[in-house]
């Protein structure tokens, strides 16, 4: 048995025989992180996302113009003219500043969906898994129905029903995104439900609500988090698609999908109006995909690459 030196964190984390459950878990995370760090592409994605987050936070300092300020006399300027890095749009607004502020909207959407959809899935999945019986059958049937739906079309229909807008877009995407999470949560619950420690807790007199919320949920979280990271790019693309169809964020807000849609009109002579926000959508979802791909490698070497 090797002695662990608690004074160096690294050694503590890499200890072959962890002394506590906490250390074991931290150690597993750390090893995963080391693996991830050796994956260049995944790190590129992570760094890009970090930069993007910073850019979004500090948008007011980085922007060269007010993203909403119109100048009908300086519309559709080419990139580089008059201090407009990416040119201007049809109302003379600075595209660079708009794209920068648009990052806030994208991050906002991703965060909200990443909160709502897994939560919904978590509740339905754990309840179904823990309760079992007819409730399980009914809930899983509902899940299957939603899983069978064409997602974009369902999201479209939801937004149409709820009214266009960013919150409703988030809600619509969440309503179509929860079923896989519910399945994962249910599977996890089924394995945990009959474990000894749950039996022990039940014997102590804990009710089902308390057991599900206090003891089962925490154990489902990590697998859900991983799954959500993998789904981020898809969420962004769906949100941008809704924006493109005019069902997402409403004008004058600089949502990237809506910006592409506006720029469509000018594609022949003023290509940059649609190109720049399109590239922005592509980069952020590529970054999420690179990161997700790296994560998958770490967690499931079989499917992964080199």
């Amino acid at each position, binding site marked *: 048995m090797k002695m662990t030196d608690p004074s160096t964190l690294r050694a503590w984390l890499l200890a072959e025989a962890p002394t506590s459950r906490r250390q074991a878990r931290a150690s597993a995370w750390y090893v995963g992180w080391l693996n991830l760090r050796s994956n260049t592409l995944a790190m590129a994605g992570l760094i890009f996302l970090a930069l993007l987050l910073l850019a979004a936070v500090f948008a007011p300092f980085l922007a060269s113009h007010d993203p909403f300020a119109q100048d009908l006399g300086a519309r559709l300027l080419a990139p580089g003219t008059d201090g407009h890095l990416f040119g201007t749009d049809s109302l003379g607004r600075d595209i660079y500043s708009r794209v920068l502020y648009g990052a806030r909207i994208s991050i906002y959407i991703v965060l909200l969906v990443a909160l709502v959809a897994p939560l919904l899935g978590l509740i339905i999945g754990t309840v179904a898994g823990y309760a079992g019986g007819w409730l399980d059958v009914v809930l899983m*049937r*509902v899940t*299957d*129905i*939603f*899983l*069978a*739906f*064409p*997602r*974009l*079309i*369902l999201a*479209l*229909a*939801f937004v*149409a*029903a709820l*009214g266009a807008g960013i919150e409703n877009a988030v809600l619509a995407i969440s309503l179509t995104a929860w079923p*896989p999470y519910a*399945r994962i949560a249910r*599977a996890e619950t089924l394995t945990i439900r009959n474990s000894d420690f749950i039996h022990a807790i039940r014997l102590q007199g804990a009710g089902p609500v308390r057991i599900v919320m206090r003891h089962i949920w925490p154990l489902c979280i990590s697998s859900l988090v991983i799954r959500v990271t*993998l*789904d981020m*790019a*898809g969420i962004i*693309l769906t949100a*941008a*698609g809704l924006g*493109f*169809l*005019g069902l997402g964020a409403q004008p004058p807000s600089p949502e990237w*999908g809506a910006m*592409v849609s506006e720029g*469509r009109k000018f*594609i*022949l002579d003023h*290509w940059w109006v*649609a*190109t720049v926000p*399109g590239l922005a*959508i*592509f980069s952020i*979802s*590529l970054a*999420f*995909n*690179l990161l997700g*791909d790296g994560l998958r490698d770490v967690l499931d070497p*079989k*499917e992964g*690459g*080199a």
Partner: protein
Amino acid sequence: MTQRSSVLQAARRAPLAPRWPKKVASTLLTMAVTVLGLLFVTFMIGRVMPIDPVLAVIGERATQAQYDATFRELGLDKSLVSQFFIYVRDVLHWDFGTSIRTGQQVSTDIARVFPATLELATLGTLIGVIIGVPLGVVAAVYRGSWIDQTARVVGLVGYSMPIFWLGLMGLLIFYGILGWVAGPGRLGVFYQGVVPTVTGLMLIDTLLAGEWTIFKDAFSHIILPASLLGYFSLAYISRMTRSFMLEQLNAEYITTARVKGLSEWEVVWKHAFRNIRIQLITVIALAYANLLEGSVLTEIIFAWPGLGSYITTSLLSNDMNSVLGGTVVIGTIFVALNIFSDLLYRFFDPRAK
């Protein structure tokens, strides 16, 4: 994402010894329940919408009396429950009501627009399979090589691309600037109505009619959107192929085969590839289902008169009957393909043997 999860799901459910009739019956029942649920959800979305369907029908200038007449005509004075039952009954008779926007039966509309989507998605899947499968196999065989890395990047880029933007750029470059392909739409304007509709699939109808020039025109129209869709299914198909192949190549019997002195070609294609065929078919079925749905944005960009653009434009003009009809049709096909691939997987999973 749905694709991946379905396959995982299928893989997770341990396959039992196949008992055909019982299995098929229960699968059909599942499908029926799912489709009924689908009908219910679409119906609720349509009826709970805070939009007045009557206004969508009669427009801006109508009087109150005309409004009331249309209200009754649409059956809106009945209770929600009986409206739902009437709706289900009608759908079972292939009647989705009248489209507000086109003034025609939704079923007629769907029959008219669906072949366009079918043609596009089929060609797209074909392209995805023809390129994606070999790519996946090669990537697995030369794991870690530059081919593998390229395949991976190509796949990731595909997953990350907003299709509406890629389509726009494709149109700009290949049609607007280079002029290599024809523009939006299915056919050159003055070829409209020349070829009699037999299958509704333009490429086949033109050949049946022996109109080689029009066939080339149709091909020139479809190739760009189909390639784009093909790219998206390629990303998925090559990835799954690679992962299936890796599993096989690591298996013991492959080592045995190698030891026996079989050539690499035989090992890869005669043994490993043969064993993943069924898995591949399920993946392709799912990819196909996803293209049917995923063509919505592509159809909008390319003015492709298919089901996807039909549903979207109907939605934007509050034509709920058309939206519901289209959703039910796509949903049903989606469910059917999902269940088909599920069944296939359960019956033929090599691990079950």
